[in-house]
């Protein structure tokens, strides 16, 4: 574990309008196998990725919002969500789907993966990384 790096995936784009959100998620899933210190940042339109109740049946595209709920099983448990971005978009944390993980260091207690942060806190999260990937 000498080479554990802090990876941050930046999500600033809405889902479906473009493929970046989905293909970013595909990197996160593959990356989970590499045992790095992984965080996801959702800010600006990226917060829309986590909106609950997504139903893509009418647009002929595959929905992928369920994948976010599976991230915990891959050991991806830190999803930083910027509350300022939510507010700008008329959303609150209640408009997001619940995403949890079972904490293996705490008797597999179910805990929330979403970590609400304000802009200043998000800036600090960004500053603490080794590798920042944006798509």
């Amino acid at each position, binding site marked *: 574990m000498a080479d554990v790096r802090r990876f941050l995936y930046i999500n600033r784009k809405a889902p*479906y*309008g*473009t*493929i970046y959100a989905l293909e970013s998620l595909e990197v996160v899933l593959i990356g989970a196998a590499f045992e790095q210190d992984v965080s996801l940042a959702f800010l600006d339109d990226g917060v829309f990725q986590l909106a609950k109740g997504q139903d893509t049946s009418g*647009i*002929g*595209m*595959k929905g992928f919002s369920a994948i976010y709920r599976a991230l915990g099983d891959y050991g991806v448990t830190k999803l930083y969500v910027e509350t300022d971005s939510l507010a700008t978009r008329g959303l609150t944390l209640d408009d997001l789907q619940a995403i949890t993980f079972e904490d293996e260091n705490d008797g597999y207690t179910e805990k929330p993966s979403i970590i609400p942060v304000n802009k200043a806190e998000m800036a600090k999260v960004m500053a603490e990384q080794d590798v920042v990937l944006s798509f």
Partner: protein
Amino acid sequence: MKFSILVNEGPYTHQSSDSALQFARAVLDKGHEIYRVFFYHDGVNNGTRLTVPPVDDRNLQKRWSELAAAHALDLVVCIAAAQRRGVLDEGEAKRHGKGEGAANIAPGFRISGLGQLIEMGIQSDRLVVFGD
């Protein structure tokens, strides 16, 4: 009414191609005619037969090809944009020495010039643009 559709973006990356396809189906459902669908910019990438999307995902090229077959649609890929991006029919592939079997244009699509875009603007009652 005579509709035409311009698709400016490739499959999957932007929703444009999906939206255009759904719109085209609705145009036909409403009893209108589709004069032509023109693919420009990265839109030409809708016309490559080489895509292999995940099995549980839609295959946009096939959807376009099938819609074209079912309704005798004229799907035109811009030749200049297609050359820039590597979508070629047999004549093009041969002319540019890309080797036997290299042509990648999908069934139901044809490659032609930008004049076809202008012409559809002149001949159609309505032209709708889908892009980024």
